[in-house]
């Protein structure tokens, strides 16, 4: 089977575009999606320091690979990789090792932050047995640590490796939960090209690329990535939504794209009830005025108790 663009052997079929792609044209396609997203979301605004959240998994590794090579000779864009070590033995430590190998290969500055020194928490030791739902704790600590360290590193943008499937799943989950407020918050915080104010602006430049294409890119380039699933995965709702979406995508190619497009159009028009943020009493991070502590600090408290 041949590539629709050049006749070389195809490595992948894109059902939604009706094309087959060879290795070279797959790379080209992924790169061009990332570059268009950078343009459309106006991520280049002057002297940039982009902090890329690097988990050691395939998505953030592919994003870093594309960005590092695209902007290698561009003096106005500096790229820093930021890896969080949540403390999950046998999972995250190997992923951290993969992230170190990749940043060495790409010659990108790399910062690693351990939850243990940051919050006094190891997810495997402190959260799992006591609370029974490590993902919600892990998620809050991750978000807090990413914001805090992106800020410390002087980031102009915080970029994450979410792919098309991730964003389509979140969009559909927000519809299913009837979470109009959540939709609006999700859009403002990480999809909108506008600045959200308090935090370093976030963006997801890989969000037009399906997960499978990201995986094939990583495999063909032999990037050092860690592919095991987190032992604590995975939220029941996201798993259901993911399987349903993949099944639907197979029968109706292009569904993920349509969902994300509709979601963005709707979310963009939602009223944005901007609550004024106050400083957390313990750590000083911006937080909603409902409690004295931000979510990360109140969770630290819970875990400690």
């Amino acid at each position, binding site marked *: 089977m041949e590539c629709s663009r050049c006749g070389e052997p195809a490595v992948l079929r894109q059902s939604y575009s009706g094309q087959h792609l060879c290795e070279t044209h797959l790379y080209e396609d992924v790169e061009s999606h990332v570059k268009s997203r950078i343009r459309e979301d106006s991520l280049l605004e002057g002297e940039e320091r982009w902090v890329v959240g690097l988990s050691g998994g395939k998505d953030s590794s592919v994003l870093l690979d594309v960005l590092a090579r695209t902007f290698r000779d561009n003096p106005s864009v500096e790229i820093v990789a930021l890896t969080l070590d949540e403390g999950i033995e046998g999972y995250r430590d190997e992923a951290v090792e993969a992230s170190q190998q990749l940043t060495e290969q790409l010659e990108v500055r790399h910062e690693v932050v351990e939850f243990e020194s940051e919050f006094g928490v190891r997810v495997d030791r402190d959260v799992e047995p006591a609370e029974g739902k490590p993902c919600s704790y892990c998620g809050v600590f991750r978000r807090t640590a990413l914001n805090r360290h992106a800020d410390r590193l002087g980031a102009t943008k915080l970029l994450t490796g979410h792919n098309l499937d991730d964003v389509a799943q979140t969009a559909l989950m927000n519809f299913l939960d009837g979470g109009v407020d959540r939709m609006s918050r999700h859009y403002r915080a990480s999809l909108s090209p506008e600045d959200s104010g308090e935090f370093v602006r976030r963006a997801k430049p890989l969000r037009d690329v399906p997960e499978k294409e990201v995986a094939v890119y990583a*495999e063909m380039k032999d990037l050092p990535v860690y592919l095991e699933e987190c032992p604590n995965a995975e939220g029941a709702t996201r798993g259901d939504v993911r399987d349903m979406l993949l099944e639907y995508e197979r029968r109706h190619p292009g569904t993920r794209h349509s969902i994300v497009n509709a979601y963005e159009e709707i979310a963009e028009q939602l009223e944005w009830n901007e609550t004024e943020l106050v400083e957390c009493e313990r750590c000083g991070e911006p937080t909603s005025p409902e409690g004295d502590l931000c979510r990360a600090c109140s969770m630290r408290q819970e875990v400690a108790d």
Partner: protein
Amino acid sequence: MKVTADVKNGDVHDVELADDAVYAELLDALGFNPEAAVVLVDGRPVPEDARVDAEDVVVMRTLSGG
């Protein structure tokens, strides 16, 4: 025809397929959606609508682990 599929981070399966089968049918037989898995022949991915022409393949699931 018989194909031996070695699933990465999983088990090895022998699958019986029609002579004119495509790789999507192999993935179906293993219970994987072709949108979330890829077949590798001699280490290289092949499109799921290509005719099966190898007796030994590797199957990689493409879902991420968070």
